[in-house]
C-alpha cells in the first residue's frame, strides 16, 4: 500500500513500524514547476543515500535507515515526519543569496542553521524556531536537538566529502518521530538534497545542474556515487556533545540561600529586586554525537542524580562539540 507518493519517491507501508521507500527517476525544481524524468536518477540517489545513511549510522547517529532492499528501494523505520526541515550551510548559495543579496560562495566560520516549513503550497518558507515552537510544529527541546544533530551531521559529511575532493556547500535534513517517540534522521540524503562543488574547479555536482540547465545531471550524480563507493574505511572523527544542565529549586520550596542573597541585595542600591533563587548548573561533555539516545541519557542523569525531583526542577540544552563548555 502506497501511503505517500511525493515528487521523487513513493513510501510503501511494510508493517506498523517500517516502510519501503522507492526512489523514482522523477526530478523537479521550484516546487514542482519544472519537472522531468532522468534515467537512473532514482537508483543513483538511492545508492548515495544508502552510503550516507550507513556512514551516519556508523558514527552513532540515529536514522530511519534499516537496509537497502534493491538499487531503488530502502527499508526504513516508519516515522511521522516533523513539519520543519533543517538546512545547514557552510557557504552561501541558493535561496540564502537571493534572500539577502549575497554573493555565492562566501564561507561561514560557524555553519548556518535554518529551519524551513515543509509545505510546497507555501513554497517551504523560512521559519524561526520561536515561531515553529509557538505554532506547535516542534517543541523547544526538539529544536535544540535538531540543531545539534544537524551540526554534527555537517561536520561528519563535510569530512567525508572532503576526502573525495568535494566541498559540501549546504544540505537539508528531514527528521521523523518513530512510533515510540524517538527522533531520527529521515527521508533521503542525496545529490537532490545538498550542494556539492568540485574542490579544485568549483564545478557544480548536484541538483543545481538541473535547476540551472547545466546538463549532464546524471553523469555528475554518478560521479558522486562512485567516489563515495571508493571510501573503504571511515576516519575517526571524535564527535562530541556538550550539555548544560540547570537545576532550580521548585517554587514551592524555600530557598534560604536565595533569600539571604535577596536581603543583602536589597540593602545595597539595587532597587526593584523582588526575588532571588539560587540554582546549580552542570556542564557535561560526552564523546558521542548528539542524538535522541543521548537526550534520554541526559534526562536520566538530570532527574536521578543531578537533581532531587522532590525539591528541584531541571532543564538542559544539548550542543554539538565541546566549545559551549568553555564559558
Amino acid at each position, binding site marked *: 500500500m502506497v501511503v505517500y507518493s511525493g515528487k521523487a519517491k513513493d513510501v510503501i507501508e511494510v508493517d506498523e513500524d517500517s516502510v519501503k521507500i522507492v526512489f523514482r527517476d522523477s526530478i523537479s525544481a521550484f516546487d514542482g514547476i519544472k519537472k522531468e524524468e532522468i534515467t537512473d536518477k532514482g537508483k543513483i540517489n538511492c545508492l548515495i543515500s544508502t552510503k550516507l545513511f550507513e556512514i551516519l549510522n556508523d558514527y552513532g547517529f540515529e536514522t530511519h535507515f534499516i537496509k537497502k532492499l534493491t538499487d531503488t528501494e530502502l527499508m526504513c523505520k516508519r516515522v511521522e515526519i516533523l513539519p520543519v526541515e533543517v538546512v545547514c550551510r557552510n557557504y552561501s548559495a541558493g535561496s540564502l543569496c537571493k534572500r539577502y543579496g549575497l554573493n555565492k560562495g562566501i564561507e561561514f566560520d560557524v555553519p548556518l542553521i535554518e529551519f524551513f516549513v515543509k509545505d510546497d503550497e507555501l513554497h517551504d518558507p523560512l521559519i524561526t524556531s520561536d515561531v515553529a515552537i509557538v505554532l506547535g510544529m516542534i517543541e523547544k527541546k526538539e529544536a535544540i536537538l535538531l540543531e545539534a544533530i544537524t551540526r554534527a551531521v555537517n561536520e561528519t559529511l563535510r569530512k567525508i566529502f572532503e576526502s573525495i575532493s568535494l566541498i559540501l556547500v549546504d544540505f537539508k535534513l528531514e527528521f521523523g518521530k518513530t512510533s515510540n517517540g524517538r527522533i531520527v534522521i529521515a527521508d533521503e540524503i542525496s545529490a537532490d538534497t545538498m550542494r556539492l562543488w568540485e574542490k579544485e574547479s568549483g564545478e557544480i555536482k548536484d541538483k543545481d545542474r538541473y535547476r540551472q540547465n547545466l546538463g549532464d545531471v546524471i553523469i555528475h550524480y554518478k560521479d558522486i556515487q562512485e567516489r563515495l563507493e571508493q571510501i573503504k574505511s571511515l576516519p575517526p572523527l571524535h564527535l562530541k556533545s556538550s550539555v548544560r544542565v540547570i537545576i532550580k529549586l521548585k517554587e514551592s*520550596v524555600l530557598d534560604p*540561600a536565595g533569600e539571604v542573597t535577596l536581603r543583602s541585595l536589597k540593602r545595597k542600591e539595587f532597587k526593584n529586586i523582588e526575588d532571588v533563587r539560587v540554582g546549580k548548573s552542570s556542564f557535561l561533555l560526552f564523546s558521542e554525537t548528539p542524538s535522541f539516545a543521548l537526550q534520554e541519557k541526559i534526562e536520566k542523569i538530570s532527574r536521578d542524580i543531578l537533581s532531587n525531583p*522532590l*525539591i528541584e526542577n531541571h532543564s538542559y540544552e544539548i550542543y554539538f562539540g565541546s566549545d559551549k563548555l568553555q564559558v
Partner: protein
Amino acid sequence: MKIGVTKYPGTNNEQDVLRALSELNVKGILVKQYENKPLDDFDALIIAGGFSYGDYLRPGALAAQSPMMEELQHFVDSGRFVIGVCNGFQILCETKILPGVLTTNTSTKFISKWIYLKSENSNSPLLRNTNGKVLRLPIAHFDGRYYDKEKEIELLKSKNQVAFQYCDENGDITLESNPNGSVNNIAGITNSRGNVLGLMPHPERASFEYLGSKDGIQIFENLLEEIKC
C-alpha cells in the same frame, strides 16, 4: 551478630558509632565503600554520618549512587535493620529507601548544638522505650531541614512513621524548638515496615554520661535486642 558500620570518603562518625556499640559489648564491623563487601553478610547496617563525598551535588546524593547502596534495597526488603544517622539519613532519602529529602537549614548556617527530641506513635522496634520520653541529643548539620509534600507528610503521620520530632525541654513541639525548619519539626522517620530508621540527631554522641547524655544508647540497645531474637 554482625553489625556493619559504613565508611565513605568524607564521613567522620563511624568511630563514634563503633564506640557506642562496644559500650554494649558488640564489635561493629567497618564497611568501607571501596571494599565492596557483600551486605548480605550482615545482620544490620548503620550508615554513619559525616560528609560523604564532600556533600557534593547534594548531601548523600553521590553515596546513594555507590555499589553498596544498590544492594541496600534488597537488604531492607529482607527485613534486616538499617539505621542512618545524619548524613546516613540523607543517604537513605537519596536512595529513596526513606521518603522525603533533607535540605539546607532555614538559617543557612551549620548548626551544632544539643536539642530535645520526642518520639511518639512509632511502631518500629528500634524506638522501643523511647515513646513519650524527651531525649537530649546533639545535632551537627548544614542540611537537616526535612521536607516532603504535604500529602506525603500526612501519610507518614497516618502510618506512624514519624520517629522523632524536635521539641522543648518539656516535650512540647514548638516553632522555637525547631532548629532547622523541618516540616512538622521532623527529626527522624522510619519506613513503613519499621526496620529502617533515619534521624538527623546523633544517638552515638549521646551514649555516655561523660558526653552529657546517655539518651541515645537506647536506640542501639533496641537494635541489638532485635537482632538477638
